[in-house]
């Protein structure tokens, strides 16, 4: 049971707490320009999409260098996206993606 990442978790907690606490503890100083607030609001979808894309499309080549990856994961993630868009249900989308991937790998 490795504890190596506990320090990282603590640092992430330290990075998170001010945005939660400052306006409540010292009201007024949190005011930011509207464009800065808009930028911060857009960071979340951008980061989540970046994580999804890199985890799906980028693999590691024999020499350890990043390579473009094409596989069943593409279809699984796209299917999940379609289900979420259509049914507004993430868990159903995840289920479909997992079942498709498992079935494809079982056949292969």
């Amino acid at each position, binding site marked *: 049971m490795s504890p190596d990442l506990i320090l990282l*978790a603590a640092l992430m907690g330290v990075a998170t707490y001010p945005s939660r606490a400052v306006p409540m503890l010292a009201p007024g100083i949190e005011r930011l*320009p509207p464009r800065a607030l808009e930028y911060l609001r857009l960071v*979340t979808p*951008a980061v989540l999409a970046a994580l999804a*894309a890199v985890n799906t499309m980028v693999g590691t080549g024999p020499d350890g260098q990043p390579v473009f990856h094409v596989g069943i994961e593409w279809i699984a993630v796209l299917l999940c996206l379609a289900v979420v868009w259509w049914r507004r*249900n993430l868990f159903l989308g995840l289920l479909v993606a997992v079942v498709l991937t498992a079935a494809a790998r079982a056949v292969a």
Partner: protein
Amino acid sequence: MTGSPPAAAQSDGASPRQSATGTVDAATTLEASRRRLVMDGLGVVASAIGFGLVYGLSAREAGFSLIEAVAMSVLVFAGAAQFAAVGAVAQGVGWPAIVLLTAFLNARHLLYSAALAPWVARTGRPTRAVMAYLLTDEAFALSIAHFRRIGRFDLRGYWYAAIVTTFIPWNLATIGGVVLGGVIAEPSRIGLDVVFPAAMAGLAVGLATGRREAVAAGAGAAIAVLVSLAWAPSGGIIVGGLLGPLLAMLVPGGPVRRTNPVPLGLASELDVATTHVTSEVSGSGGAPADPGRDPDIGVAP
């Protein structure tokens, strides 16, 4: 235990304290609102358990130990940032970059905290400090709707929203996910390795409530892949996540689409709440919203 209402809530003509029957009506309103809070909270509990399990599974898949995954759920207690950290650790992103990413991802809490500030102004500073630690998308959405219904602050309602519906289920489900992942010998054979990217993509779709959000997500993904191939995946995620929003801000903002609040979980609903709070904070310096206006932002009826 309740606190004092902010000035805006006290001046509201519909405030329970100014009704003809005085404290009886106030108590009735408080109890009715708390019952609704409990019912609304059940959906949040289900969501927290589901996402907590997925987080635990993903963390296990990325090599986190049980204590590391739980430490993150306790100390960070922010789903999107935790998912991002799992992906970033798996891709070999350095700790400073992960901490920076966390700060950006969780900066939205600034808006929630600012919106709550007038309601909690008369609460003791140590209590506010603990409340801030437990402030999440879910706690904000549930509690601010409750405060608006009753026209004043209710500490017990806040603890319920923050601890009972979110903190406890999220942490128990994290443990469940890690343990479940541990008993599965080869997770990739049954497709569990695809859970993480699919969950990230699905959440991003849920957040694409307008043109700018969609552009931010699309541009962030494209930039991340290109930079990953040219440089390193760890750099690609950071560059895509930070440049995508800049490109999105170049396009005109489309109308905010109110999403179906039931099945996707709070991520999509709360982005709508964030949008409203953004305008409140930037427009009026953090004054509370009119308690009579749109009291159910972000919470399923």
